[in-house]
């Protein structure tokens, strides 16, 4: 199996808080990789470092064989990493369709001149953007909400829309930060089908999730963070049985 992402010795501190300490992990092409850990373990911070939102203090990240640039989220996106946010970040006053169309920005290129003169290239590109956005809305199952404002969608649909927008950037790696948070059982079940489908379509997925059942059922491999450190990285069955994991989740004495 080829390695898609290699993070080595990542460190990140916020003042006195060491949010990440010497975290190394390897994500292989085509797998669903789970990142779990108790609240405040540093999972979201790892996402933010990975996607260039925060500069990292230490460590190297190699993605698809290339070192990943520091501190420029849009370049990371162009390199092929797309993400969703734990606290949904949609463009609230744009329609669902427009949200996904914005996601096409990285892969399209008509500039001001093209827009002002409505060149043939611009019209072709614009039509392609719209068509792709519609396809993606359909793919995540919210095609009927295309013309609704993002802020008017239900919670579950907003999460799906965020995934569609991320997919619009044509990622090689899709990083999802707690996509099932706040979803009911039915919504979670269909989200699970969606994520499994992404892998079947050849995408690599990095998944942060608190829903242990979802993670264990879906992921090919799982890493556990605790107090900013990786305590284990293995297949779900092994991770679940590991005493350090049980201790991290339930506290000393429970193991």
């Amino acid at each position, binding site marked *: 199996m080829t390695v898609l992402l290699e993070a080595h010795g990542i460190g990140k501190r916020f003042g006195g808080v060491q949010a990440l300490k010497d975290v190394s992990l390897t994500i292989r092409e085509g797998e669903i990789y789970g990142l779990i850990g108790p609240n405040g373990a540093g999972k979201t911070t790892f996402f933010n470092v990975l996607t260039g939102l925060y500069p990292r203090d230490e460590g190297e990240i190699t993605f698809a064989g290339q070192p990943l640039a520091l501190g420029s989220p849009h370049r990371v996106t162009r390199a092929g990493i797309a993400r969703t946010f734990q606290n949904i970040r949609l463009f609230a006053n744009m329609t669902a369709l427009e949200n996904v169309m914005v*996601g096409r920005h990285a892969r399209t290129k008509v500039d001001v001149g093209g827009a002002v003169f*409505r060149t043939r290239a611009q019209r072709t590109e614009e039509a392609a953007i719209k068509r792709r956005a519609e396809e993606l809305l359909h793919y995540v199952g919210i095609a009927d909400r295309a013309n609704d404002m993002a802020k008017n969608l239900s919670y579950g649909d907003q999460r799906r829309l965020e995934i569609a927008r991320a997919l619009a950037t044509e990622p090689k790696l899709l990083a999802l930060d707690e996509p099932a948070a706040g979803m009911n059982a039915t919504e979670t079940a269909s989200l699970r089908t969606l994520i499994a489908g992404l892998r079947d379509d050849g995408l690599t997925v990095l998944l942060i999730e608190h829903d242990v059942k979802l993670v264990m059922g879906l992921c090919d491999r799982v890493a556990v963070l605790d107090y900013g450190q990786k305590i284990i990285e293995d297949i779900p069955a092994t991770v679940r049985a590991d005493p350090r994991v049980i201790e991290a989740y339930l506290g000393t004495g429970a193991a």
Partner: protein
Amino acid sequence: MTSLRTKPHLGLALIALALALLPFVVSATLGNAWLRILDFALIYIMLALGLNIVVGFAGLLDLGYIAFYAVGAYLYALLASPHFGLHWPVWAILPLGALVAGVFGVLLGAPTLRLRGDYLAIVTLGFGEIVRIFMNNLNAPINITNGPKGIARIDPITIAGHPLSKSLDVFGFTVPGLALYYYLFLVLAILIIVVGIRLQDSRIGRAWVAIREDEIAAKACGIDTRNVKLLAFAMGASFGGVAGGLFAGFQEFVSPESFGLMESVMVLCMVVLGGMGHIPGVILGGLLLAVLPEAFRHGAAPLQQALFGKTLIDPENLRMLLFGLALILVMLYKPAGLWPEPRHRAELKKS
């Protein structure tokens, strides 16, 4: 089916006819002073449309926007007046004005890229004042701007050898200069509207709105927010530069006092009052705020005379008073502006 296709054209033709006849109707009924106000309204509309790109689309609160208007106006004044003895043609000055103002836009934008909201407002406010103070003081040691006295005897805008300040005979029919200016401004305003609409419906326009809505998510979508913001500043500023050039040629006089903070606030009010980010709303806002205060200026004193026999409140004060009241009322009852974007337009199309 043909009727469906011809109807919108018919509507457009009627609007065009109305717009073409408007100056004659206005000067015949209200007088030339009002035709002049109408010309100014068109300039203000262009300004408001430019600021709308920065504030309305990209969500960057800019309180120094009038500086770009000043740059365009002074550029025209310096290149077409006896001050330096230069008399460049308008078709050379206006594009240059757009370009230079655009560069100034980038100069303002670059150091403020990390700022938002109140902080950005304060910095841009300072920038506007700096430009005005420069205009005021660049008369020594070398006299560039002629200081507070301003630059006078600016060349009127001349097209095909005819200065628009003079009336023109068309088939024995006299078109006054103010109407000629009206037509020029109308054409340019329509041009700016078309550019604005096309930008809005493009990936650039969507990127602007995305930044307004959520800058971090915009970055995560692969938008280079630095460049896209600078582009908003530059585009908005260049519209302002064109409007400034027109102002200088129309007025034939510029001085720093035309470019104070109040003017920036006025243009911002046009955008906010009309409907931020919604082009028809912004046009309405520009028109209203250009015309209504003048109506007060002209109407308040005679009205008070008729009612009370004397002028109780100075019309200028009354104008500001009512203006402030109107703003408060609109913000209370129509916070999204008088003509905000119809949010559900798209939903109707669906079925």
